[in-house]
């Protein structure tokens, strides 16, 4: 049997940032299957050196236009850890609510605008405005709600201003506007679940190590806690370097990472695989309806895991706003006294676990900085998945270059990569 396949994608579409796919199969033999990140490096860790502590969060927010809240939170917590600052309880709740807003915005953007067009056989969500207006309306309402939460709590939708070292600038006045919209979102999410039941995910499994935060008895983890992998590795937050093991690949401007195996995965599926029991029952029910149970090794299931998380977040946000209603005059900021020190912070960005690590001198200026990005941790795993995917599907009857290109593109999109972030 002579199978010859050739896929060459320059700057993959419907992902954040710039990456290329190369696949070559000759006479049924896999010669090459590559996922290469070619994004231009920005050297944020170098730019952070010498900066005043108040510049760290506004600067690192600019690593990513989609997950700027996650970067802000990771940055603030690393600085607070270095200075020994404890933020007030109300501030911690507000930060988690803002984080939920970002996750909802980011997941809705990915599910409807980046991933769904492949399942509905269109090049983008734009033609869906005519063919599926009700789907677009749901997408815009959910994404709009995520942005609205960010706006109310963070002061802006992208690159927040109210989240600061020491807490949150003030108790937001717009909180009472949110619950009615969140209630409506629950219906929109139910319709989205029905839509996703009609999507045919590629039947592909590759055994993978999944890394995420571990729940510490206070619900599904988003901001800071121990680090865990499905291969049984457990580390403290400050010990993150033992979890990431970054190294440089000659073909990629993003670094690659490994742990117990050649590569590992982070993101919604990793979080769910490690913390399924902490999901709210409403979210667990949706996971069940969509056939997702831990530990699931199909990377395309990350789409489903994101939807499950949206359900969890919508319910949890209602609870958080309830708690805040009784804290109207509670302090949201503490005074910050800088000192020489070192701090590490891990938060779950929409695309997976994100680490910031700073060293400060006695003047409150950064002497050393390190940021390890979720997509940086995923890139080697995407690359390894692609090889296995091509090996499995190349021999399928009637396989064409176009079909294989679509499968490989869908694989990368399933990880919802934030590529410029991964290079930073």
């Amino acid at each position, binding site marked *: 049997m002579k199978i010859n396949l050739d896929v060459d994608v320059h700057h993959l579409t419907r992902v954040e940032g710039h990456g290329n796919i190369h696949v070559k199969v000759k006479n049924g033999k896999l010669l090459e299957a590559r996922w290469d990140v070619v994004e231009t*490096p920005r050297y944020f860790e*170098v730019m952070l050196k010498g900066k005043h502590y108040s510049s760290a969060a506004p600067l690192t927010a*600019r690593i990513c236009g989609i997950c700027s809240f996650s970067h802000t939170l990771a940055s603030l917590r690393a600085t607070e850890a270095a200075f020994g600052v404890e933020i007030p309880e109300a501030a911690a709740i507000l930060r988690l609510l803002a984080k939920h807003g970002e996750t909802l915005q980011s997941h809705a953007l990915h599910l409807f605008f980046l991933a769904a067009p492949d399942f509905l056989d269109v090049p983008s969500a734009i033609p869906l405005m005519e063919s599926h207006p009700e789907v677009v309306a749901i997408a815009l309402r959910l994404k709009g709600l995520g942005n609205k939460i960010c706006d109310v709590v963070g002061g802006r939708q992208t690159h927040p201003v109210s989240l600061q070292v020491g807490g949150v600038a003030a108790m937001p006045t717009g909180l009472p506007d949110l619950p009615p919209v969140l209630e409506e979102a629950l219906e929109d999410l139910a319709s989205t679940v029905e839509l996703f039941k009609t999507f045919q995910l590629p039947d592909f499994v590759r055994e993978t190590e999944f890394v995420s935060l571990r729940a510490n008895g206070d619900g599904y983890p988003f901001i800071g806690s121990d680090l865990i992998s499905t291969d049984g590795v457990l580390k403290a937050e400050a010990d993150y370097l033992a979890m990431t093991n970054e190294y440089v690949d000659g073909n990629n401007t993003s670094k690659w990472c490994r742990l117990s195996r050649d590569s590992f995965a982070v993101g919604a599926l990793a979080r769910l695989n490690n913390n399924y029991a902490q999901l709210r029952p409403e979210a667990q029910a949706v996971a069940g309806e969509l056939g997702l149970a831990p530990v699931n090794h199909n990377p395309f299931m990350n789409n489903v895991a994101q939807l499950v998380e949206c359900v969890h977040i919508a319910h949890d946000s209602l609870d958080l706003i309830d708690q805040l209603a009784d804290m109207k005059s509670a302090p949201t900021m503490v005074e910050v006294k800088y000192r020489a020190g070192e701090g590490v912070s891990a938060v779950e960005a929409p695309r997976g676990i994100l680490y910031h690590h700073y060293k400060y001198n006695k003047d409150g200026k950064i002497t050393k900085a390190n940021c390890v990005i979720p997509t940086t941790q995923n890139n080697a795993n995407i690359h390894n998945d692609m090889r296995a995917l091509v090996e499995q599907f190349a021999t399928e009857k009637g396989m064409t270059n176009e079909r294989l290109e679509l499968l490989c593109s869908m694989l990368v999109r399933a990880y919802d990569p934030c590529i410029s972030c991964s290079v930073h």
Partner: protein
Amino acid sequence: MKYLGIDPIKPKIAVFDFTSCEGCELQLANKEDTLAGFLNAVEIVTFREISSAASDDYDIAFIEGAISRSDEITRLMDIRKKAKVLVALGSCACFGGVNRMKNAYDLNQANREVYGKIAKETLPVRSVKEIVPVDLEIHGCPVSKAEVERIVQHLVWDIPYTQPVYPVCFECKQRYATCSFDLGQLCLGPITRGGCGAPCPVGGLSCWGCRGPSEDPNYEEFFRIANEYGYGDDEIEERLNFFGGFEGVR
């Protein structure tokens, strides 16, 4: 989509990304309540971040990002040849953005620190207008979608539009925000171009100057006030250099 039974004439728009966080492009897909109308006023032919369709036939090119590698220069020059109107979208495209702070460091050393022995190609960061002529600039980090809408209306229907000449300070006062200086924060609002609606000082963070200088800013008086409030020259300089728009001012 027809309007009153007639197919409207729409300009073909293409969106391209260079050295950036792609946050400004994301703003184009935000402001969800008017997004359908916005998308209906134009024909998006290339927008890699959200669409797999692509065409080299476009009227208006939006450029997000700074330029920091040789392949980006080639790509930008090619886009300039094809576009009738070229718009720099956001602070990175207009000034180099936060990326420009990289230029203060030795790039070989920066490469060693980040990548060790396997150095990656990188050039000093430049803005779009340092490479090709730019017809219109939309400032901000990120851009304000409301302002993008006003500018697109200007481009599509020739509705007059000019950049605000007044500083952010002006809009901050209109929103009754407490002066950031009085909250103990160094603020570039008195010298930064308005048009954003002052979301940052209203949200509790002073203006950091992402939109670059307003028309004819009174730097001398600004430095005097900042010094008077106790901010040292190095602190003021770190802030002025943050988004690249005030380069060479001090």
